[in-house]
């Protein structure tokens, strides 16, 4: 009798166990579904975004067609809109920012991951991550009150004096300029490059370093010829992250770039970026054509980001060697 109850108990127990395992498998399914939804939602949001930008810019698209990309005038009074000066300003200021930030950021990351004592590295990394969290309007304010006066009174006259034969450094000096925009952007994106690149460099297996040192390489040779190439894809990824931020940055740029939609070779001349003009003019834009032209600029920025990111990916694929780790 007692034996039978024990048996029945055992049977019930094993049935429950099987049920539990089945539920776990169910859990797997649930997790799969939830993560799939999360991934799909990104695509849905992106598609909806582009759709809305496209639909809400029908008037200028029909009126200007592809001429919108090449138009040099932005005249809300006469209703004549062209995006070229803004595209130029966005691309050049971001390129300038990368030019300044990449050597600085990658250099700092190499120092922090390879050469600095661990304690100093950790402290500095903490400070750098703090920098990344500062709102961009603060960078803009610092830019207009500290950076721009220094540029106007010291840096720009110096550049004009020494390199003034280049068209890049000619023309009147106002302070607010393409150069100021590029420098502020560079300061803003350096923390991204440093903190991601450092993580990537730290993730390079110790064996790689040991092997290089074992073959008689110096510390620097091992770092520069083995560790950095190994982490190259990850470092590139950090640069693209930084580039994306630079392309879309609004407040800090508009405060120092001079906000003048003209194309000028000189870095001392004021310029204008896509994100800045949208933020500046959207609130007071009356009339459909004007408003929709601003929305179309949003679409242009989106396309620009896709093109630049696409080119960047191609560059990675073209330069990635075997054995390089993709982060």
């Amino acid at each position, binding site marked *: 009798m007692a034996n039978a109850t024990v048996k029945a108990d055992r049977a019930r127990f094993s049935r429950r166990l099987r049920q539990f395992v089945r539920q*776990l498998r169910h859990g797997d399914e649930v997790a799969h579904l939830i993560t799939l939804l999360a991934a799909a939602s990104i695509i849905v949001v992106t598609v909806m975004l582009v759709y809305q930008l496209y639909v809400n810019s029908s008037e200028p698209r029909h009126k200007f067609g592809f001429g919108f990309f090449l138009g040099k005038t932005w005249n809300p*009074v006469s209703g004549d809109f062209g995006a070229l000066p803004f595209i130029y300003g966005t691309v050049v200021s971001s390129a300038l920012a990368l030019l300044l930030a990449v050597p600085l950021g990658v250099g700092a990351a190499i120092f922090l991951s390879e050469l600095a004592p661990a304690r100093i590295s950790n402290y500095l990394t903490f400070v750098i991550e703090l920098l990344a969290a500062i709102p961009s309007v603060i960078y803009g304010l610092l830019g*207009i009150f500290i950076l721009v006066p220094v540029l106007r009174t010291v840096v720009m006259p110096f550049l004009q004096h020494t390199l003034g034969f280049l068209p890049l450094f000619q023309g009147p000096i106002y302070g607010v300029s393409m150069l100021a925009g590029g420098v502020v952007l560079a300061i803003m994106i350096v923390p991204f490059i440093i903190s991601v690149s450092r993580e990537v460099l730290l993730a390079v297996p110790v064996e790689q370093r040991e092997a290089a040192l074992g073959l008689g390489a110096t510390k620097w040779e091992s770092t520069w010829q083995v560790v950095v190439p190994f982490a190259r894809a990850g470092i590139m990824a950090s640069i693209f992250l930084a580039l994306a931020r630079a392309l879309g940055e609004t407040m800090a740029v508009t405060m120092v770039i001079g906000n003048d939609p003209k194309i000028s070779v000189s870095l001392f001349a004021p310029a204008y970026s896509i994100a800045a003009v949208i933020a500046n003019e959207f609130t007071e*834009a009356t009339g459909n054509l004007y408003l929709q032209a601003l929305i179309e600029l949003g679409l242009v920025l989106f396309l620009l980001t896709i093109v630049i990111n696409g080119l960047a990916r191609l560059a990675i694929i073209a330069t990635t060697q075997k054995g390089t780790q993709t982060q």
Partner: protein
Amino acid sequence: MKLKTSITSIAVGAVLIAVGLCALVESPSAAPAPSALLLNAAGATFPYPIYSKWFTEYNRLHPDIQINYQSIGSGGGIRQLQAGTVDFGASDMPLTDKMLGDFKVRVLHFPTVLGAVMPTYNIEGVNQELNFTGELLANIFLGKITKWNDPAIVDLNKDVHFPAQDIVVVHRSDGSGTTFVWTDYLSKISTEWDTKVGKNTSVNWPVGLGGKGNEGVAGLVKQTPGAIGYVELIYAIQNHLSYGRVKNQSGDFIKADLESVTAAASGVSKSMPADFRVSITNAPGKTAYPICSFTYLLIPAQIDDAVKKHAVKDFLHWMLTAGQNDAEGLSYAKLPKEVMTRELKAISQIK
């Protein structure tokens, strides 16, 4: 491994539920008490300080009426009123006939207070208040006069010694009612400005640097030797900026202050159209400052909800009478009596 995933999914579910609960709990607390009437309004940022004071004050006097004002800019206010998502709007410039045609309902303009715009500058060794004419300002902003020691400037300011400094023009980069008033004035004075540039909240500037907001323009002017820009009266008063006098229609050089701005509105009041859509730049009157404007509330002429209609009318009445006394404390020029009386009559047009 499997246990882990199930825990994760439970955690994710729990977070989702928590977020949902938060949303449920949050929303009712933001809404007003059930008996109160909520009026929604949106529009211009320039009058926001005085509007916010008025709406708070009015709510204190009438606890059952709450007015929620979003200062999203004139353009946004006009669009929201068109879409019918707000009960009334606010704009720094009168709507054009074309814009009014886009509305399904008739819209009435009610001037509330006045603003003014004045030239501010930074010239080495010059601390005096300079005299300007509209023609001179237009030529400077067109880029035709490029040096501070240009005869056109020196002739107006005989007792000032000007350096041979380059003029750096600074304008607003953001769309703004301030730019509208400034360009409206220049368009009236200079036919060349009118044909080449025109008037709007943003224009295609022939020369110059753009600063964001009054503070951006003032900051750039302060920093840049030889700069000239334009700022709003309130901003100039509150930040103790020095600014120039401008020649008015009767030939006097007038410094902008609350009295000279009200005087400009008063000078125009006789010729003012019934719907108050009028530019008061370059107004007649000996003491009138020439670069100023009304800012408006845009009220639908027909309000179906009787309670709302009564509330809107009552608020307008209060704003035009008792409310006007709050204006000068916040550095807004108040409406002249003539305009106020006419507006009080116009309230009855709301049906």
